[in-house]
């Protein structure tokens, strides 16, 4: 699933025997559905890996391909075509889900390029490799250290007050302020991320390498911040 487009393997169509390269969903000659192609999620949509995407065009292509691939279109087909329709549609759906969300798209591209995200590097050598539990990274971004410490204390106070059935409007107001602040920081991360997208899309190998490192760090920071915002929301909303 993570092979890069360039190394697509030539295959022969099962129906008309004409050769085509491995990255097509339909035979370009006889139009019959093919088994799931090699290649990455971008190639499913006929794209080279890039970060700035036209979401309208992506959706239009998703709908167009769905109409042709979906198992509902193969209800009366042969068993092999039914199987491939199922596998191809799952691939299409997985690809669309990944590419239409900016964060998932970024994570996917980094994985494609071989970069390691911190969340992966720290899993246990358990029977399951690469467990994708969305754990928060253990390392706190340096500039947030003090704020986070303070916030966690306030959250503890809040929870204790709630448990005792008491209300603390001053604390609530402070927490609401904190939430605004962290939302702002999140917004800043998103702006930086978009800038890195541009750098990656337009740059050569060296620029890309650098952009990848920065994006990995931004994603870690973002994940940390959004977990914090979530914790505040939960405590305030409870």
């Amino acid at each position: 699933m993570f092979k890069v487009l360039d190394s697509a393997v030539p295959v022969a169509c099962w129906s008309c025997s004409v050769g085509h390269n491995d990255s097509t969903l339909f035979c370009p000659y006889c139009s019959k559905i093919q088994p799931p192609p090699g290649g990455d999620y971008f190639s499913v949509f006929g794209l080279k890996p890039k970060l700035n995407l036209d979401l309208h065009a992506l959706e239009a292509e998703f709908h167009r391909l769905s109409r042709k691939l979906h198992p509902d279109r193969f209800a009366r087909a042969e068993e092999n075509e039914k199987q491939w329709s199922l596998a191809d549609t799952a691939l299409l759906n997985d690809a669309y889900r990944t590419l239409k969300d900016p964060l998932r798209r970024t994570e996917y591209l980094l994985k494609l390029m071989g970069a390691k995200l911190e969340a992966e590097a720290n899993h246990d050598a358990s029977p399951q490799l690469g467990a994708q539990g969305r754990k928060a990274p253990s390392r706190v971004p340096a500039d947030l250290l003090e704020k986070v410490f303070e916030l966690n204390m306030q959250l503890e106070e809040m929870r204790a007050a709630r448990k005792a059935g008491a209300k603390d409007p001053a604390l609530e107001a402070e927490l609401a302020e904190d939430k605004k602040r962290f939302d702002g920081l999140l917004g800043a991360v998103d702006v930086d991320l978009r800038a890195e997208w541009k750098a990656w899309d337009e740059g050569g190998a060296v620029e890309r390498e650098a952009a990848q490192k920065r994006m990995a760090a931004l994603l870690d920071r973002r994940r940390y911040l959004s977990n914090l915002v979530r914790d505040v929301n939960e405590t305030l909303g409870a």
Partner: protein
Amino acid sequence: MQGDAPVVIPGVDGSNLVPSVVALDPIPADGGRPTITVGNTVRKALIETPERVIYSVKRLMGRDLQEIQDELKLFHFQLANDVEAGEVPCIQLGEMKFTPPEISAYILRQLKRNAERFFGAQVTQAVITVPAYFNDAQRQATKDAGRMAGLDVLRLVNEPTAAALAYGLDRAKTGTIAVYDLGGGTFDISILKLQDGIFEVQSTNGDTHLGGDDIDNLMMAIALNEIRDEHGVDLRLQPGAVQAVRKAAIEAKIKLSTDAVAYFDIELVNGGRYQREIPRAIFEQLIAPILERTAGPCKRALADAGITPEQIDEVVLVGGSTRIPAVRLLVDDLFHLAARGKKPHIELNPDEVVALGAAVQAGILAGASKTTDEMLLLDVTPLSLGIEALGGTVARIIQRNSTIPASATEYFTTGVDGQANVAIHVVQGERELATDCRSLARFDLKGIPPMSAGLPRIEVKFLIDADGILHVSALEQRSGKAAQIEVKPTYGLTDAQVEGMILDSFDHAEEDFAKSLLIQARNEAETILAAVERAPQNPAWKQLRGEEQAAIEAARDRLVQVKQSDDTVQIHEATLALDQATRHFAELMMDAAVSTALRGKTMNAAGEELDENVSAPHAMAPAEFK
């Protein structure tokens, strides 16, 4: 489907609805096995012999012993005594016991017969709807029931999505739709985007323990308590009387949808009479907590879809319970409808709209018409799929509301040298701990080649298909060997068990019907064969090309062969094939004026179009002029 529109097929009694009531009939005089009856005719038995009757079996499908025991507290039916933990629980009906899928199968068989009666031909395939919030076990149980009833289940469709299909048909819409489906036992809320005939579900949520039955049970409990307090009679000891009170509660509930007041008026065995007036305002107060339970799922569905109530363009109401005025008020409130000058859609019968939508989906699968060819349903899985990891936490591999089919690939290895099996526990749900989620199955990956601990790299592919059911395949990458997977469904029947439960296609009552279909098919076959016998004597025969004559002869031989069998479907198909093969010949035989009008039709159709004064049992038979 009739042309482009779905139509409900009525039952023998003329009613469009078959109530989910199943009864074991009394033991016949000859002491043989009692038959099973389904639907309206059984309602009396519910009051007279309640221990032989079950209703709303959908609430028991795909559930384990513990959950069923909880559900059964609200109903009168009993679990069979000898149920083991880990096995599918059986319900005791009279002297026999049945699993919930078997009971469902009897209901499906009744629907199948109603359809066969309507078409005059066998029906072997079906599209079956399920609550959107049904989990894997509940879906699998539904498919099992279909199989037992002799139906090839082409697709399971989520009920709110089916309703959207039914509404989307005569309104070429673009927009965001919320479907609020409050049925007898389950509540679903789905949010869809409609665009150019593509129905794309954005999110779905619900409660599989919430429905009109809860309202009935509440009203029934209140009445029973009052009867006990006022008349000193605890009717709960008499299942038949309880069912009579339930019937009265349902009637009162229905009346309160249109009238401001309803009444209980029940004669008691000891000669007393329970009479009670129920004003609508009181009724609404009593059921408010039940209706309020629908608000949470609605809010979560909106959040998951990332939209506000104001962004919902249309709301569709589904399920008999949405006739209750208080429900409509709640929906209006949740989606800010009146404030925006909108009303919920209730034009289609809320009891039928799901079936109509299922028919549309069946049309899409059959490629029946150009209209349905432009429609496509993209549904989602309602619950996250996860694997139990070390420490009992859940690692989510497919998120809830992912468009299906969807897949995920995970990698596993061994912990011990030479380990040949790896066990994976798959769960569904949103909680952090596996024990708080719904256990789906344990997959044992077997046949891993012996290697040092940590060396094997087993790639496991999880695929949720278009029905929302999970499939798993595994490959040990270093050796390239596909691992055998043994699936132990946590709450479900094995394939072998389902096979053993497939219902007899016919019981005595239906043998006659089947026989008559067979006789009819054979008669039609004989008619066309007789006509084809005489064909070479007709001058038009020589106008046919060699291959056409050979094709006709081949089709005739085939029909002669299958006519001997009991297979009505095959005989019917072979008859049609011969009819098609002789179409050109039939045209040639007609005189010029008639053949101009009828060119392109088959002989059967040609026969129909001939002047009424001409009768021919078959277009190729000599016409008899009156």
